[in-house]
């Protein structure tokens, strides 16, 4: 079905259209949620809340071409994930000074890492690192925007990103030398 038509039907609170939209966007949105919330039950709860917000506020959405809806929904989902984290899993700004000054150079990518291994590293990363890394590296937000979203300073966002990168590198190095993270 045409996306715009579907949106219009959702604006009229048609249950069938709402379900169709949910089913069409569930997978990409769920994946986005899982990047922030490792626990699948947490991700599902946050996702449900996000979709309720989407359907409640879809009247305010202005269609601006293909993909604009997904972008709008992604913003709502990310905000919901941050809200969920701050409510149930407070984002603790990690202050691991060793990671901040660790040697960040890592050029040994001769052995291509397994995607699952990378996913595992990200999943085990502290929530503060992971959130900032996802927002900056995956979603493309600036440090200023991240600071506003997480209620932290721009400098803290930068340092959290730096530590997240070093954390990933350390884990990758460890995996390279010892075979496990």
């Amino acid at each position: 079905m045409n996306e715009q038509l579907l949106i219009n039907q959702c604006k009229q609170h048609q249950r069938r259209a709402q379900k169709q939209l949910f089913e069409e966007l569930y997978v990409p949105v769920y994946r986005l949620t899982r990047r922030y919330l490792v626990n699948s039950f947490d991700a599902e709860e946050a996702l449900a809340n996000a979709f309720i917000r989407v359907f409640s506020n879809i009247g305010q959405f202005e269609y601006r071409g293909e993909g604009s809806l997904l972008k709008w929904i992604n913003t709502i989902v990310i905000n919901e994930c941050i809200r969920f984290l701050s409510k149930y899993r407070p984002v603790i700004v990690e202050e691991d000074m060793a990671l901040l000054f660790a040697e960040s150079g890592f050029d040994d990518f001769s052995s291509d890492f397994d995607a699952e291994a990378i996913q595992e590293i990200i999943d085990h990363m502290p929530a503060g690192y992971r959130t900032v890394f996802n927002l900056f590296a995956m979603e493309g937000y600036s440090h200023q925007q991240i600071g506003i979203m997480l209620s932290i300073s721009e400098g803290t966002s930068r340092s959290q990103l730096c530590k997240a990168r070093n954390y990933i590198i350390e884990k990758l190095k460890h995996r390279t030398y010892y075979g496990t993270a």
Partner: protein
Amino acid sequence: MEPHELDKYIGSKLREAENARGNSEINGMNRVWSAIEPQLEKRTFLAWMKMAAIILLLLMPSVYLYLRNREQGRQIRTLNSRLTEINRDYMQRLQTLTLNQPEKVVVLYDTVKLIQTIEKKAIPETVEIVKYVTDTVIIYQQPDRAGNLVESEPAVPSGGEINSSWQESTVKTEYILSKDASSARKKKNSRSFQISLGAGNKSAETEPELALKTKL
């Protein structure tokens, strides 16, 4: 490797891992939808309730006016029925009174009739009996066509006093039957005199004194 290259590398690996998971994520879809749907129903219900409340609020003055009108209509109908009842009762009482009027009243009535006849004969076109109510007879006397004043000379039965009066315009003569002549009413700005009937009946002290009162 530059930091942004690392970011891209990690990003691509994460997407790869997500794609590798395939449709395993869909398992939770029904669970999530079943959590969403009741909330949507609730919100829809609340939205309808809000709309209904607004409509009710807007309709409230009309409803109030309608109810007030209905209540007033009901009160008017009740009062009307009560008035009808009172009127009917009054008419019944009046009828009873007329039927059971005492002998003296009958005599008075005959007297008045006689007076009326005499007055009619005297000035047939200027005298008009307007009203007769049980104990009162009101006679209006008007000037004749030439504009001359008309003399009113009520006829009195034997034993009664004769009084007459002159008036510039309409003469209103009111005959009142009362037990006590002193209780007869006297209006402001009007001269009145009484004609006692039954004056010849001296023996009957217990008999009610009949009086004819004439007002000008």
